[in-house]
């Protein structure tokens, strides 16, 4: 297995999936790193590495969610905006959109989130079924319902944001 080549190929997709799933860049960094460290000791054919990594990462997220308690997250104070940065209203709009998407995702059950995000990464139904722990024949139905739930929740989140402005 050409580890470095595989890393460059798969890491961006895994990191994106984890960041979208957890909403936390630090957790995404951590879990992606752990999954790839474990891959080092797995004698896998290259074509099995991707589903294996995503399955391991999904399980690690689940373990972490079970163990974590409710915490307040304090963010590091951002450096002051530079004269060359985007205008404040663009920053505010982007921040609002991110919050809306994040809030919508949080409303979905964990399994729905995982399925939707793995579909976005181009996984096949049998791979998704294996990673998430459902029957392959049920993936289509679960996805269809999850997509509709997201669309409805996202729409009402945006309507709510517009009403507050």
């Amino acid at each position, binding site marked *: 297995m050409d580890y*470095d080549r595989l*890393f*460059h190929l798969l*890491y*961006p997709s895994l*990191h*994106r999936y984890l*960041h*979208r799933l957890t*909403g936390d*860049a*630090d957790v995404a*960094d*951590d879990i*992606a*790193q*752990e999954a*790839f*460290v*474990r891959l*080092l*000791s*797995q004698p896998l054919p290259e074509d099995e590495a991707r589903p294996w990594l995503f399955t391991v990462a999904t399980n*690690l997220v689940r*373990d*972490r969610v079970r*163990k974590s*308690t409710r*915490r*307040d997250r*304090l*963010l*590091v*104070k*951002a*450096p002051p905006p530079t004269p060359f940065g985007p205008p404040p209203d663009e920053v505010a709009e*982007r921040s609002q*959109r*991110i919050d809306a*998407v*994040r809030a*919508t995702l949080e409303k979905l059950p964990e399994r729905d989130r995982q399925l*939707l*995000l793995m*579909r*976005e990464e181009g996984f*096949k*139904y049998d791979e998704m079924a294996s990673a998430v722990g459902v029957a392959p024949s049920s*993936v*289509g*139905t*679960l*996805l*269809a*319902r999850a*997509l*509709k739930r*997201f*669309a409805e929740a*996202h729409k009402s989140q945006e309507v709510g944001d517009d009403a507050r402005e």
Partner: protein
Amino acid sequence: MTHVSEGTLQAFLDGELPDRERAEVMRHLAGCADCAAELEVLRAAACDLSAALGWLDTPAPTATALASVRQVSSIPRIGPRFGFSDRAAGVAASTRRALVRAAMLVLGLAAAASAAIPGSPIRDWLMDTWQRVAGDDTVAVPTAPAMDPAVAPAAPATASAERMAGISILPRDGEIRIVLESPAHSSPIYVRLIDGSTASVFTNGDPGAASFRTAPGRITVANAGPEGVRVDLPRGAAAALLTVDGHAFAVKDADSLRAIAPAERASAEELVFRVGT
């Protein structure tokens, strides 16, 4: 008329149907407005999701992450990692822990010796070895902190340079995160500002079950022992945050440290906390 189920429509949309079933669905859609409309609902929902998710994405730190993976996989694990178990190890856990403690003690002694003697060849050897193992200059060679009584906080009587293990990193986009997980109850945490470009974390005393993990701009230390932890933050970092079991303890704002949690001792340059108080 029997309609196509939403699960089958979704599988059709995702290209997951066998050829024969796909052809049947296409024939049905040509004559059923309801199912065609349902397919469009699913297609629009999928587009909405893709567009929405795009707002969340930030560039993945691939290069620095690979360096971190190589670094972490080259450091022997000192006991079980927080939340994860290592099933792949073939060596008995107790034997491995003994070997790893010995290796960390040797590394700590060597680092202390190199810091004590200016121009020491041991330091040069350590730096060269570290660079070859890590393969990336985002991680510096661990060094023991200078024992300058004017700057260093009052250390416990049992702590000494020979019994410290630690790790250093560079900031990510000017920011540093230090994460302590499950430190020993009542153990001290010393935080200070230093000159230089790297942040370092050292565990005092016997490394024991302590484990270190790094990510771009972040050091995580789990299970630090009762003799405590020392955190050095570079004065030049734009911002820094220290958390202990998910709670913010200290931040670096501009040129000074600020305690968020109650501190035993606090100044702009130095903070001392006691875990669990």
